[in-house]
């Protein structure tokens, strides 16, 4: 009798568990539909269009073009080079700033945060042109430096790779600082104190305790910055002076040149696939999960 009751109980529990599963699935359904409609279908459509030639039939011409013209390879190299450099400089400038902000009182940290966020809320186009005005040959920086005798002739800051990097690092910095700062704030300060009480120097305590704990935030920031950089258009177009041609710019000029979606889609597909490959390799080299569990 008891056994039977237990069995009934078990059956009811299983049923309940199953019902719960269905409920959860039902609750995620709107999200799944959204992902399907907003991401999967458009990307599938992108892949499909990249195989449509100019005459509307199935063709590899959009990919052949990328192999035949050396410009495409160079553009992809430029795109990844600029994105990696921007990400690197963002980490170089962003990490110390986020660390500083995490160590001071909340009040002052909030004031610093306003300093990070105000440029973040300013239009990207405005900030890009502001850099152009500041850094061009007869711009504010060069003319002041030449007038003061600091420079004998103006430095070429813009219309090249360095100008593009200055603009992009400035625009991307908040994307690195925000997740990193949130992560650093969450690190228990007692951990570092414990390390010190066990005799670690401040440097040692930072590198063995604080830094590893901040890696998840750093990785999240690096990833956001890197992926956003890959699709950048305005800043390299304005500050690069035509010398920094990134994939997004070629996508736009291909629509104009070929009057076909395919010529642009193929570039998008290659950019997407190469990016996913890079992230896959990166995730093999640096185990994201490992750091995720440690925090």
């Amino acid at each position, binding site marked *: 009798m008891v056994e039977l009751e237990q069995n009934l109980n078990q059956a009811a529990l299983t049923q309940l568990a199953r019902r719960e599963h269905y409920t959860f699935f039902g609750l995620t359904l709107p999200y799944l539909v959204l992902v399907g409609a907003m991401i999967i279908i458009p990307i599938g459509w992108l892949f499909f269009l990249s195989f449509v030639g100019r005459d509307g039939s199935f063709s590899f011409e959009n990919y052949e073009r990328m192999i035949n013209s050396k410009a495409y390879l160079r553009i992809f190299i430029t795109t990844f080079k600029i994105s990696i450099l921007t990400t690197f400089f963002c980490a170089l400038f962003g990490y110390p700033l986020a660390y500083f902000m995490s160590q001071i009182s909340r009040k002052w940290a909030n004031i610093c945060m306003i300093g990070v966020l105000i440029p973040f809320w300013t239009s990207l186009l405005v900030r890009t042109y502001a850099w152009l005005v500041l850094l061009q040959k007869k711009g504010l920086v060069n003319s002041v430096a030449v007038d003061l005798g600091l420079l004998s002739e103006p430095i070429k800051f813009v219309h090249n790779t360095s100008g593009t990097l200055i603009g992009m690092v400035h625009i991307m910095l908040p994307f690195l600082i925000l997740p990193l700062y949130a992560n650093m704030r969450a690190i228990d300060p007692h951990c570092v104190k414990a390390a010190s009480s066990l005799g670690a120097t401040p440097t040692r305590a930072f590198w063995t305790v604080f830094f590893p704990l901040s890696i998840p935030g750093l990785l999240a920031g690096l990833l956001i910055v890197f992926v956003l950089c890959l699709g950048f258009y305005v800043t390299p177009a304005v500050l690069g002076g035509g010398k920094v041609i990134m994939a997004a710019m070629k996508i736009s000029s291909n629509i104009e*040149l070929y*009057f076909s979606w395919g010529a642009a889609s193929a570039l998008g597909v290659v950019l997407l696939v190469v990016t996913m490959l890079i992230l896959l390799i990166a995730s093999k080299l640096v185990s994201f999960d490992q750091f995720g569990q440690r925090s």
Partner: protein
Amino acid sequence: MKSIFMFKTAVIAAASFGLASFSTASLAEDTLRIVSWGGAYQKGQSVGIFQPAAQAMGITVKEDTYGGISDVKLMVKSGADKFDIFSSGAGGCASGGAEGILEKLDYSVIDVSNHLPGMYSDYCAGADIFSVVAAWNTETYGDNGPRSWADFFDVEKFPGTRAMRAKVDSQLEAALLADGVAKEDIYKVLDSEEGIDRALDKIRSIKPHIAVWWTSGAQHAQLMKDGEVDMTTGWNGRFDVAKLDGAKVSYDWKTGIMDWEGYGIPKGVKNKDLAMKYIAEMMKPEYMAEFAKYITYGPTNKLVYELNLMEDSRARQMPSHPDNAKHQMTLRTDWYAKWRTIAAEKYTEMMTE
């Protein structure tokens, strides 16, 4: 307090609803939307042509800027309805027409009987004539700047930074003129991959001196205004406007490559008939004469000259004035129809080297 808030909301809602229904009604009947290139150019068009012509017909014309024939393509292919008429270079219209995204213009409605020869096509009703020239900074070179394309490409005789267009249009012609090809032979030489490579090699030879590849007329005018480069290729009218604005810039008609701009209609616009009538109105010489007061782009309608609608001193500043035109070559859109994609890819390859 709450009731006041609700009252306000109701008023705003009612007002916006009223406005919305009013604007859709007017859009259907007597409103046209026209797009052009912005800046000094569109300002001249707006004050000289678009608004006076609209007033004469008793219709409303709304203006916006756009990014060229690719925007027309995007609009037509995606079924969006954003504008009824666009202003475009002859080459842009020709390629759009070949792609089947434009309405054929009805020349029984649009009167082009007084147009200069060749200044209209199936898909483009010519409105003004402009030139690509080599402009120099008079602070750097005084009056003795590059007065020919050979000078522009001579970095020893004229040391200094240069800017060229990030797109192939009219840059290869300039390079070949610099390489010693006669202006009547330019398109014969360019009619092969070797000819295109020859022009590109000429540009390669001065590439270290090219500081900027420009993408818009507003940009190359600004480059000269700011003294960012010492010389650049670009549109004559933009330089004239910049000069009035205080820029130290000059150019010689001997570098001129003449081209023309006109109006086209995207395929499938609802207001096609009205758009056609409006283009017909804009072809009248008095509008073209008025437009030319704002920017130095010459009229396509020769009645402007025959009826003396323009002062002689102003007429002499136009690229199409006989005294200026005789030095220049004329851009051929049929070459672009045949070679644009090949030349453009090679040009990008050269730029990214």
